[in-house]
């Protein structure tokens, strides 16, 4: 009995699975699913080709592991990328630290007038993003009697500075000797060099922003979007570890202008300072300006209690209020 009915049943089944209605239904579902797949991938239309790293860049090794030839080709790649994007021929170099040099910055809070020239000179020198804005230096207008940076105001907008009841405290990377940002980096993309400058390999950074969170001075800045810089504003003197153009998704920060300072020059923020409040030099040279300041002035560091051992010192001179010693006090001079 079973032998009789089996073929019949099988025949019916095969008839059902290949019938016209079933074919169309299944076919339409498959076509619909494939169309949906294509549709789901369609946002890739918006992907910018520059967002995909080149094979060369993807295979590039860590800064410390690159040999001379690899560094030369990396520098050449950066040169080509800058040429392609801005149509200018930059000078890209890898400037190494010198022996017997440890950089220290000293800033005289009595002389700083809060003019913000350093902020903008730094942006110009270091090819920082203009849109969105990214600045390494921030200048705080502080009320008298505190160095608590939470009480400072970044947005002061007076007709003229300085104001008699405030002092001005610029803050940038302190190049700490025991840098928390270096400790937290999961991929060792940031480290402290022998001359005391904490640097970032922008090609190695994965953009996790742990270092930004670890820094007690908020000295690190993240490129949330592709940095936009007008071609006319590009500084063509570039170096691998400092002011070469950065990509979206990497960290950056002040490097004491190492492309300048490692060749004996002063940093851009110091050159532009109209009052001479900024002092920079080699602390291993006992006659340098910074050594003299550390020896003779009452210096302090910001947030000493967090134990970061900054290489950025603040100090005061005596200064009298601006209203004294002027025309009213010495009216007879007329």
């Amino acid at each position, binding site marked *: 009995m079973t032998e009789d009915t089996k073929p019949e049943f099988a025949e019916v089944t095969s008839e059902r699975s290949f019938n016209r209605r079933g074919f169309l239904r299944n076919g339409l579902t498959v076509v*619909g699913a494939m*169309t949906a797949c294509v549709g789901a991938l369609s946002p890739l239309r918006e992907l910018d080709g520059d967002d995909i790293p080149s094979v060369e860049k993807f295979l590039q090794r860590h800064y410390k592991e690159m040999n001379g030839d690899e560094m030369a080709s990396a520098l050449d790649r950066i040169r080509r990328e800058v040429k392609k994007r801005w149509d200018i021929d930059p000078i890209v170099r890898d400037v190494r630290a010198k022996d017997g040099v440890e950089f220290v910055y000293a800033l005289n809070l009595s002389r700083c007038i809060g003019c913000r020239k350093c902020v903008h000179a730094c942006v110009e020198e270091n090819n920082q993003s203009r849109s969105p804005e990214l600045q390494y230096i921030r200048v705080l207008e502080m009320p008298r009697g505190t160095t608590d940076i939470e009480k400072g105001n970044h947005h002061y907008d007076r007709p003229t500075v300085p104001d008699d009841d405030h002092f001005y405290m610029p803050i940038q990377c302190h190049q700490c000797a025991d840098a928390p940002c270096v400790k937290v980096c999961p991929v060792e993309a940031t480290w402290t060099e022998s001359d005391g400058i904490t640097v970032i390999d922008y090609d190695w950074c994965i953009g996790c922003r742990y270092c930004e969170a670890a820094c007690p001075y908020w000295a690190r800045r993240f490129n949330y979007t592709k940095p936009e810089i007008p071609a006319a504003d590009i500084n063509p003197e570039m170096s691998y570890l400092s002011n070469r153009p950065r990509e979206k998704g990497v960290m950056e920060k002040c490097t004491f202008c190492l492309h300048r300072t490692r060749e004996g020059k002063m940093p851009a923020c110091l050159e532009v300072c109209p009052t001479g409040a900024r002092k920079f030099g080699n602390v291993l040279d006992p006659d340098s300006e910074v050594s003299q300041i550390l020896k003779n002035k009452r210096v302090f560091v910001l947030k000493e209690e967090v134990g970061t051992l900054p290489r950025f010192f603040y100090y005061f001179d005596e200064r009298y209020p601006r209203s004294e010693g002027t025309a009213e006090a010495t009216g007879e001079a007329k």
Partner: protein
Amino acid sequence: MSGTNLSVFGVFFGLAIWFFFEPVKEPFPRAPATAEVSAEDISTASRRVRMSEPPGIGENEFRLQCQECHKLFPSDRDVRVKLSQHENIQLNHGLNSWCFNCHSLEDRNKLVIQGDEEIGYDRVEELCAKCHGTVFRDWQRGMHGRTNGYWDASLGESKRLVCTECHDPHSPAYPTYEPLPGPNTLRMGTPLQSGHDERKRNPLMQWRGATNHDSTQSQHSKEQE
């Protein structure tokens, strides 16, 4: 069974149409850009030009040094009458309000320092040191004033600016500046936060008492609102 297939198909197809015809989104709105500053605003030039030569009046062949007239008539050390030729000199140097504290009575091309020793205009820092000894000491060690150029003298010239490249000797107080534009990001707190009156909770503010600063402060906070 067929109903399930059709509804799955319908969902997929609807999604496909939605994804495909969804317009390309506008780029994410950017944070405000950095305010542009002119090249002069971030010039590294010194504030003043150093006067190494004795001053004078007139141009080119009509140039006359002060001494060429002053040698013809004696000046009185103790009289301070402002001549019309000196209208542009605004002396605002604190207690140092006598011309001949710094200028030589006999020779206008010279400056005079301690013990009536006469020096040229190229050694002006020694004249300032006569009164500002501690500042001069700081300047000598590089703790006061600007040093531009190279920190490493073996690689290039280190240029330490002298007193008169920043300070006007007749009115030496450093002038006020118009600050360059502030940050454009709210990550540094909002501008409104700065409107608070610091005086109330800061005992160090009280020593100044009620000054004209009160009016400027309130005016300033009004502008921010």
